[in-house]
């Protein structure tokens, strides 16, 4: 087990390094950047440009630039062009809301994706399976911004329910429970929209592995014992198909964090996604580098956790 953890940690460190280099290159290697005003703008004096180059270490060779940026990022010297605050703290203040949204979305994706996937595998080849597949692709093909708008319009116009932000302002809630419910509601709607695609791909993925598991000898044994079909499916087959379910967390996260740019923007939800969109609009390069890096690092962390979780669930992994 400990050898497995050490190997997995070493891999994570290597990947983190590659990720930091990719994030660095995105901004540094592109022509015209990282000047927020463009290289040839005549209104900007040579002095301002020189200061800017010095501030972001652009006068140094690339490897040094990389080292400086990474150093600055963690020491708080990498500051936003917009408000000159350290980018890391700008990101960190958005982190709780982002984690809440993405965690909820993952929970929805995994639970309903599992149900749909098992349902499809159980009825493989029959109309229930075909309908299930169709519904899954329906969800994947739904443009996130479109369905967000439709839901937002529907809720606001038809039901008069406020949904923007993390809570309703200007309302005096009679008690803490009502206020909590209001917050939950504000979290749940964007989370559901965000989760649709992941739910669907999770169900497709799980269906495929469930079909593999259902062909195994131990499933025949389970049936021969007289176990109910639900027990055979959810206990014996699902537990052996859990790898995609757990690694699904790692696969869902990049899509979710990316997708939350659109969803958070529409629902005015104050997470990392909206911060990213604001940074894009303001050409706030330090924030963009840091956001890409932090998001990728979060995904990497998610992968590491899911692998460790899997090693706990399936004892055979330790032997691999």
């Amino acid at each position: 087990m400990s050898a497995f953890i050490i190997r997995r940690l070493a891999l994570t460190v290597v990947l983190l390094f590659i990720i930091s280099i990719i994030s660095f290159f995105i901004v540094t290697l592109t022509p015209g950047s990282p000047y927020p005003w463009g290289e040839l703008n005549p209104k900007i004096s040579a002095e301002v440009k020189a200061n800017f180059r010095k501030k972001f270490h652009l006068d140094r060779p690339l490897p040094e630039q990389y080292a400086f940026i990474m150093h600055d990022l963690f020491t708080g010297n990498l500051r936003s062009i917009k408000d000159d605050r350290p980018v890391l703290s700008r990101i960190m203040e958005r982190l709780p809301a982002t984690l809440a949204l993405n965690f909820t979305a993952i929970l929805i994706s995994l639970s309903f994706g599992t149900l749909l996937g098992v349902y499809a595998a159980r009825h493989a080849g029959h109309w229930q399976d075909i309908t299930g597949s169709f519904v899954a692709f329906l969800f994947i093909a739904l443009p996130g911004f479109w369905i967000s708008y439709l839901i937002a319009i529907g809720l606001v116009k038809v039901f008069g329910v406020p949904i923007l932000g993390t809570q309703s302002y200007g309302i005096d809630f009679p008690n803490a429970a009502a206020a909590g419910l209001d917050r939950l509601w504000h979290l749940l709607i964007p989370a559901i929209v965000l989760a649709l695609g992941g739910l669907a791909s999770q169900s497709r993925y799980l269906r495929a592995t469930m079909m593999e598991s259902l062909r195994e000898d131990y499933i025949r044994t389970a049936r021969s014992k007289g176990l109910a079909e639900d027990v055979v499916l959810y206990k014996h087959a699902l537990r052996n198909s859990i790898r995609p379910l757990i690694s699904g967390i790692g696969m869902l996260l990049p899509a979710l964090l990316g997708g939350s740019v659109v969803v958070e923007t529409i629902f005015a939800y104050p997470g990392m996604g909206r911060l990213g969109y604001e940074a894009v609009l303001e050409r706030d390069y330090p924030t963009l580098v840091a956001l890409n890096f932090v998001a990728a690092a979060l995904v990497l962390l998610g992968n590491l956790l899911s692998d460790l979780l899997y090693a706990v669930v399936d004892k055979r992994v330790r032997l691999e």
Partner: protein
Amino acid sequence: MMLEIKDLKIGFSSESGITPALHGVSLSLERGETLAIVGESGSGKSVTALAITRLLPTPPAVYQGGEILFEGRDLLKVSDAELRRVRGGKIAYIFQEPSTSLNPVYTIRSQIAEMIELHRPDVPKSTADIDAEIIHWLDAVGINEPARRLHDYPHQLSGGMQQRVMIAMALSARPDLLIADEPTTALDVTIQAQILNKLRDLQQELGMAVLLITHNFAIIPGLAKNVAVMYRGKVVEHGNTEQILRDPQHPYTKALIACIPRLGDKRRRLQTIESIN
């Protein structure tokens, strides 16, 4: 008759139509007796064994006709709920490949406990009682220090031990009929004999019937009173083991018996079977 199979016909569907696997198989088995079904791979013996409690996945399997009368009821017609009571509780199975037949992610205890919780209302539901019952059966099949094996996973045991666990699991429900589908084929020769002897002892002790599926005629004498020889989806000979051994009627049976290697038979080459029609 406890089990009576009448004119069972089963096929497998594929893109190009239905390929027949059983062409009207008839068999019968008395309470407490042992019947061996012998035949080469593809003869339909395993299909017959699995068909008894409808364990063949449909599709691709298609039940095309016949009856499987168990204690007077046709298992092809009973409800799913009724069938689940028969599976495990009245008719239990052990399979050829113990390493893949046990679920790799659950402990021995958990897999046997399922059987007891489902089919043994006489055992109290407490952990201690169930543990005691499991230990009893693990001990009965010859597993050393059974209490220490409870929380092992299948991959921690040897093939022979895994098959013993399978047997313990099957017997823990106290079934009336045990169907053993090639129970020793995947095991070492020395272990084979141990397992078969254990099976015979337990059968006599518990008084259950056994349906033994095998490709190996050599293991049948002394184990099964009656034998059914299957060839290409048909029972070509069915009767007393001794008698068939002494005086086989069907050419395939003769060939099968001729293939049994015997001590002191130095001059003869081992026989192989060519196609017989």
